[in-house]
């Protein structure tokens, strides 16, 4: 797994300098990726009267920030829901995943080779295949429609990926360190508290970024298991944009608000983000 860094250290001598054709192709690709960003920003900053189909690409005559104020008013409670959901579910699934990873990588017991793949399979299933019993279960215990039901759901279905990342992360910690601590008299929790946990900081960063992003962006559970008051931002945005009557400045401003948290994480902590996504492909 140890995700290789994407940076190559130093360029070997004799390696050909890229030609202008390379840069031309890269610039074209960059345009394809940035075109929607331009359109979103321009549309969200136009006065509603200026938004029409034929003038889609024109710059606004004057910058109008009112769409953001309106979108913020409508979306602030939903953003708060998303924030609580993502923080609590991420923290819980990261802590449990860390413990599972520690056990599966350092405490070999019979059957571990069966338990681990069975856990892992849980992160690939289409969640439609568990949605009806989950819906029924949450109704029966009275958590349907509440944020806590959604949090529970994300903790459980987050366990496979967090366990996987931590297990592979801890596999790099030499067994001799564990052995030495054991000889010094450390028990199961002592080893975790004194050796494993202090060495896990970057593992936690990778897992927390990954889980936060996934949970923030998730839609299927959110749309089936919540009510109006407990909706996360993705559901609110889908509803706003799905209505035909609205002007496009509002959905675009809403899309920016919904995207900002994960986008900031990606730009600030990109290195860890990439390690998470490489980990998601099991082998990396």
């Amino acid at each position, binding site marked *: 797994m140890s995700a290789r860094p994407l940076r190559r250290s130093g360029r070997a001598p004799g390696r050909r300098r890229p030609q202008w054709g390379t840069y031309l192709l890269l610039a074209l690709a960059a345009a394809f990726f940035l075109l929607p960003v331009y359109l979103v920003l321009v549309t969200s900053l136009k006065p509603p009267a200026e938004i029409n189909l034929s003038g*889609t690409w024109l710059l606004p005559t004057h910058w109008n920030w009112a769409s953001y104020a309106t979108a913020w008013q409508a979306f602030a409670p939903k953003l708060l829901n998303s924030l609580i959901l993502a923080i609590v579910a991420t923290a819980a699934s990261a802590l449990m995943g860390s413990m599972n990873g520690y056990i599966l990588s350092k405490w070999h017991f019979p059957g571990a080779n069966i338990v681990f793949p069975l*856990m892992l399979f849980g992160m690939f299933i289409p969640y439609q295949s568990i949605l009806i019993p989950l819906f029924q279960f949450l109704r029966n215990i009275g958590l349907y429609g509440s944020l806590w039901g959604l949090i529970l759901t994300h903790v459980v279905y987050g366990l496979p990926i967090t366990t996987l990342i931590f297990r592979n992360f801890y596999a790099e910690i030499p067994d001799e360190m564990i052995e030495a601590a054991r000889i010094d008299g450390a028990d199961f929790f002592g080893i975790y508290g004194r050796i494993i946990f202090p060495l896990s900081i970057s593992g936690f960063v990778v897992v927390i970024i990954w889980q936060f992003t996934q949970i923030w*962006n998730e839609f299927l559970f959110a749309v089936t298991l919540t009510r109006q008051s407990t909706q996360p931002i993705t559901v609110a945005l889908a509803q706003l944009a799905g209505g035909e009557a609205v002007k496009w400045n509002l959905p675009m401003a809403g899309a920016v608000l919904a995207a900002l948290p994960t986008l900031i994480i990606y730009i600030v902590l990109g290195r860890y983000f990439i390690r998470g996504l490489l980990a998601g492909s099991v082998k990396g």
Partner: protein
Amino acid sequence: MKITRDRLIAIVMLLPSAALIAIFVYGFIGRTFYVSLTNWGQDATQALALHPKLKFIGLANYTGLFGNFIETRFRQDLVNTFFFTILFLAGCLALGLGLAVLLDRGVKAEGLFRTIFLFPFALAFIVTGTIWRWMLQPQGGINVLPTLVGLPPARFGWLTSRVSVLRFDWNHLPLILGVAVAAILALAAWRGYRAGRGLGPSIAVALAALALLWALTLGRNAHPLPYPEQHGFNLAFIGIIIAAVWQMSGYTMALYLAGLRGIPEELREAARVDGATEWQLYRFVILPLLGPISLSAMIILGHISLKIFDLVFAMTGPDNAPTDVPALLMYLRSFRANQFAQGAAIAMVLLVMVAAVIIPYLYSSLRGEVRR
């Protein structure tokens, strides 16, 4: 003694997670399968009961999905998923590999380009869908881009098109599948012969012949439906595929780039010393080494594509039949129409498709790990 006590604690500490997965994944899948064998939803008074009375009706929901005139939409959804998956994979792999190769040539500002290509992966499918829905408005968005340089606007109905191409009769499906299986086996046999493997290729040839024989006799006459039913590739999907490629090709690029960075520089040097051109270097040295990454990427992207739900929901809404997919139909059947048994049957079909891709992948990944 101490070690055994600690090992016991380890097992006890793993138990909560293992139990949660056992119940929420496997228990619930089992329950969904059971629900798919019942009539839940047919009796409206029972549909939303907390403890509904369910009647066992066997495989009726499944036979309905594949051979009942009401379920045309589900069959079109399967065809949609097939075409979506093929084009989405082709787009992501081609663009991802292309960008990775370009970035691997030692360009300046590589970090900036990487950030630009990968940022859509951090967005929600709902956000991507909302943005691209606006990009693909029939009288606006990219259709009016040509007018900026004085050309007439494009007229393609990206999301609204009702045109369907590559149409075929559902009743020919057994024949088509049989021939496809035969072709794949024949290809495998041909490659086996070239590699000089013992008995394997001969068996593959025999199986290919058998599949072909079946397709041309029984398969040709097996008509799941009593009437012809046309399905094809709906062009309204092209816009959704572009948005999906926009979101996921950066991820593919990151996978390929990690692979390219793992290829030792000496190997490239050796090929250059031997007089290989850049093209030959990529074609005969680097691309073969990236094979395993392509396979991983195809599996990861393929299972995402089978499950695609939010993007379609955000781009064409849940009720646009031409751009429907099974994951969306399951949601509509279960949570809009309260036809839980039918929804469960669709979910099980979806699960089987995803499992067919993922289980061999997990098996080979983890087996390789143990060997290491």
